[in-house]
């Protein structure tokens, strides 16, 4: 009799009473046997309730193992957002002060350098390579050191004057930072004559 076969399953259940399947076996015990890899006994092979419990245990096991094995990758938008923030995080010495009657505002030094490089890049026959901006302490003026490369054949004697003029104008018009002095280094020429 099926119920007799189940006696030891029932007895093995803890206090408080087991949750029984419709066939009388404790669901937890069938589940545990399935999880442990014990092959179904004669009753379990024929009983639809026990087969279902077996299958449930197998399904959860497969799901958990698959998820544990999966590499967790944050969605790309999260990576972008964090990286943008990391790259543009400004420490106090990475800002230039902008004059204002209501107390100084701040301009990211990398952004300011990118602006100056950008305007020099747009000049004919010149490319900016690096740009360093140092603000005069306690004042709003800045000293700029910029290195450029020139296209072969560009008159190098006039490069200095052209770049200086461009940096002075861009400092005042684009940044709002008065430029006190400009050091220009022509580091290379490119292209063929």
């Amino acid at each position, binding site marked *: 009799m099926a119920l007799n076969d189940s006696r030891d399953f029932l007895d093995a259940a803890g206090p408080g009473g087991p949750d029984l399947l419709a066939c009388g076996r404790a669901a937890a015990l069938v589940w545990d046997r399935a999880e442990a890899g014990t092959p179904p006994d004669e009753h379990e092979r024929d009983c639809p309730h026990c087969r279902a419990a077996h299958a449930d245990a197998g399904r959860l096991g497969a799901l958990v193992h698959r998820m544990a094995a999966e590499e967790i990758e944050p969605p790309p938008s*999260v990576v972008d*957002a*964090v990286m943008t923030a990391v790259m543009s995080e400004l420490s106090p010495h990475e800002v230039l002060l902008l004059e204002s009657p209501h*107390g100084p*505002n701040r301009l990211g030094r990398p952004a300011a350098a990118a602006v100056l490089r950008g305007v020099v890049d747009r000049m004919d026959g010149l490319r900016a390579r690096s740009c360093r901006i140092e603000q005069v302490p306690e004042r709003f003026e800045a000293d700029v050191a910029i290195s450029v490369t020139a296209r072969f054949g560009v008159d190098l004697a006039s490069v200095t004057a052209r770049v200086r003029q461009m940096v002075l104008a861009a400092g005042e018009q684009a940044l709002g930072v008065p430029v006190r002095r400009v050091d220009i280094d022509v580091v290379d020429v490119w292209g063929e004559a």
Partner: protein
Amino acid sequence: MSEPSGPRGTRLHVGDSAVARIAAQRAALVPGVVGLRADLAQVLLGVAGSVLGRNRSRLPVDGVTAVVHGGSAAVSVTVVTRLGHNCREVAQEVQEQVAAEVAAQTGLTVAVTVTIADVLLD
């Protein structure tokens, strides 16, 4: 929280988040401002919030921090602008408009500091 003295003993509390939201809304409208830029802490809090399922409204406003103390508020706004606008003028305009807007809506005395984090070159 602040407690400017109101008429007949009413007390007005204006929270940091309220001030930050007002400031963010006004700053975004200033000509030359392309957008507000959250700092690293705000981005990470946002990520944490989305993972933990926190209510987004409790998180800080991207690009703005505000601290209300007594009857005054200190507001910091971080914006991105575009080449062609004078950074100093954009910053000062944001400073003035945000200060005026927060003062008008909350009655607080406001000190605003603007940071231009980036200048778009395209």
